[in-house]
């Protein structure tokens, strides 16, 4: 999680500590600390180990989704389908645990839990792969492609479950498929499995982003995909992989949720994609791509989770919770924009030597056009 690409902030030149810059750079963390301090002063219960652990467990769902989302956003895309994929993978797991009715052989198969997990994750990966194909091969805008998948995956979940819930997924020792509930309810060293999964995913994603060519490619595609392509970066492959990873993250969340409730509902995960996007954005990533870190995203997820739970604990009404969460998201992005401008001015004026452009170019800079041409 160190050595973030593009962090032009930690330059050796600035010897005097610029408190404004420190404030801006660390704003998500400062916001998190503020949230903890404020709620701790309002409720004795807030800062207890039990509550922190319980809140972290809630954070884990969103954080795992957000880590997948981070990778998609780094390439300059968005994945609206993750919430639906959460529901779909949960239902797939539920249906398998309830028994796979192979009427052809007149038997009902009860696959082992590890098989269930693999199949559910594969379903998430498949949904992601379709997203990736749509974006790279068929040039569908990520927003639209994943919007379509959002409906399709939700529909598929409804079809599989026939609109109902799969209850009692704890399995049966006689069938040899027990242990599913451990994913969501088990503990290791006193820490819930969901939190361990979050930590594991975070470490993997961080390594992928900072220590492998894949990560470097991803940042370069988000920064300038034309330059990346001309540098030999396999743009299509990287982009497809990113959606697959996001789908797999969503499937993991679906499994944890289903396990925790020992039940799978096709409606699970609605609006989760928006929370994930919010976490990534609060963590300082740019929706245009090329900028964002695992550390920031985790902090973003904690900000949202700790804020939401805190508001519940001190008894703020659900409606006010929405208003406050929304305000925090907007404020975070506004601050981010402010910081970007600050960086630019500190870096000196303009891009040097951009020179004249070729005569034919799309009117991408329409703003400039309307200012100059027409008159």
């Amino acid at each position, binding site marked *: 999680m160190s050595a973030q690409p593009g962090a032009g902030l930690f330059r050796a030149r600035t010897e005097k500590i610029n408190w404004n810059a420190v404030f801006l750079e660390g704003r998500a963390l400062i916001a998190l600390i503020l949230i903890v301090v404020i709620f701790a002063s309002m409720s004795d219960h807030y800062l207890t180990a039990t509550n922190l652990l319980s809140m972290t467990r809630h954070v884990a769902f969103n954080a795992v989704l957000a880590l997948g989302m981070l990778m998609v956003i780094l390439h300059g895309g968005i994945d609206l389908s993750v919430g639906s994929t959460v529901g779909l993978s949960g239902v797939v797991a539920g249906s398998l645990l309830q028994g796979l009715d192979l009427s052809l052989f007149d038997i009902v198969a009860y696959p082992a839990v590890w098989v269930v997990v693999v199949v559910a994750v594969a379903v998430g990966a498949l949904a992601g792969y379709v997203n990736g194909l749509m974006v790279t091969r068929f040039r569908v805008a990520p927003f639209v492609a994943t919007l379509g998948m959002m409906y399709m995956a939700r529909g598929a979940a409804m079809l599989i479950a026939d609109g109902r819930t799969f209850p009692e997924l704890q399995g049966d020792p006689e069938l040899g498929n027990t242990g599913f509930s451990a994913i969501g309810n088990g503990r290791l060293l006193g820490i819930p499995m969901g939190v361990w999964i979050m930590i594991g995913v975070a470490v993997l994603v961080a390594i992928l982003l900072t220590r492998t060519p894949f990560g470097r490619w991803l940042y370069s595609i988000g920064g300038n995909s034309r330059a990346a392509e001309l540098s030999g970066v396999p743009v299509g492959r990287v982009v497809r992989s990113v959606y697959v990873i996001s789908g797999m993250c969503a499937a993991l969340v679906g499994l944890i949720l289903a396990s925790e409730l020992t039940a799978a509902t096709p409606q699970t995960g609605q609006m989760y994609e928006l929370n994930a996007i919010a976490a990534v954005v609060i963590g300082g990533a740019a929706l245009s791509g090329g900028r964002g870190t695992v550390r920031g995203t985790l902090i973003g997820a904690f900000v949202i989770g700790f804020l939401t739970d805190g508001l519940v604990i001190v008894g703020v009404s659900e409606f006010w919770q929405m208003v406050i969460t929304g305000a925090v998201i907007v404020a975070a992005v506004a601050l981010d924009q402010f910081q970007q401008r600050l960086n630019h001015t500190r870096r000196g004026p303009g891009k040097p030597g951009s020179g004249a452009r070729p005569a034919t170019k799309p009117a991408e800079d329409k703003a400039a*056009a309307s200012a100059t041409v027409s008159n």
Partner: protein
Amino acid sequence: MVATQAAAPTTTDVVLHATGITKRYGGVDALKGVDFEIRPGAVTTLFGENGAGKSTLMKIISGVEQPTSGTLELDGAPVRFGSSDDALDKGIAIIHQELNLAPNLSVRDNIFLGRELLTPFGSVDRSAEDEVVRTLMERLEEDLDPATKVADLRLGQQQIVEIAGALAADARVLIMDEPTSALSASEVEVLFKVIEDLKADGVAIVYISHHLEEALHVTDRAVVLRDGELVAQDEVRHIDLAWVVEKMVGAADEEVFASLDPNPGEVVLGVSDLVVADPQAPERNVVDHVSLEVRAGEIVCVYGLMGAGRTELMEAVAGRMPVVAGQVTLQGRDVGGLNVRDRIDLGLGLVPEDRQRDGLVPQLSVGRNMSLASIGDFVRGIFLSGRIENGRIEAGIAKTRVKTSSPNAPVGSLSGGNQQKAVISKMLLTEPNVLLLDEPTRGIDVGARAEIYSLLAQQAQQGLGVLYVTSEIGEAITGSNRLVVMHKGRLVAEFDSRKVDRHTVMAASGENADLAGETAENEMGASR
């Protein structure tokens, strides 16, 4: 620089007077204290090579950019343009070299963009706008329906729309930056007629064109810029083409970078009968049956004007653009069907024309931009080795002499020349056999240009085959061993760079079409 004073006019007949204009971009001085004036009822033409500062000066006068220092006076009173709208309000309109049109909107909507005519109810008065557009089109002798979408027009017609937009503004000062680059001969004639009419109405016109003879034909006064300085100006009746060329290129005794005694080896790059279609108009070929060879240790220049198909040739060879027909071979191996990445692996790299758009990833540091294309070389297992990577970056910085405070500095903090060196370094780190460079010195200062050509010469001596494209005549000759001229998608002439002068090359490039045909044929015959 002395000549500046010679033809200094009286101030009474000057609309706009610019004094001591300087403009810095990062570390580059695009303009160094230019004094310039525009007179009503006359055409003033700016001559100068690419990067001489013509477009920058026009952007300042039209309010698109603000000068670093210097003052503007309009009708004798000091004036400051905050934006191009501001300049337009004061009667100064510009026709940009790059078309600034919204392709998704109609001709009418483009012409009135930002200053729509309104009905008393506040809605757009389309019929009134159409009326004006029709009058303008009549004047430009172009049969265009105001409701046509601009995207459906050919490039020349789009340029007409751009011109019509400027005319609609009824400006007192009209700046035309390469207005004819996409126009047909008859359209150019019409434009010149319109220019005469405007002059008669007392409009001051500033004209910029690469087509020197065409510009001399239409102009009343010539102003020559070189490397950001105004080096000469005179009335057109006192001067001729030779005068312009001499002032543009300056002293001819330039340093020759390419090795005088090249010892070319095997053919490393072969291009035969390459045809590339225009992506906008597939029935037209932007690269038309081009064949050429580059040998190891040889530096070949493709000289041609913008729009000659040079960029398309380079991108097709690099695997970025699809080809219609023809073959590209790398060390004898046909690379048709291979993508950019495969070709880099085989030793063919492209340094693109627009480094902001195609060369650099602004979010990455200088070092990481440089290592991007050769990332496979420092992977150990599945992980990047920071130690090996940093070593290679350091070596690259040293070899190409990139001036940066640190490899971790943001790439945007470098000057244009150093950014370009970083892009070149990126491709050199892939250890290519052939390096393609599209306008390697665009928008960078003289010192950095020399460094880049020295670097290429040095690499060639170690066996690299270099193919570069330029529209700067001096660089075409001094940077290369061999020079081919590209005109309208075809290679029309080939020269030994040591045995050719500027005028011959310029003539062959189509700047004077009649002469070019003859010379080209002769030279082609001679060089075979």
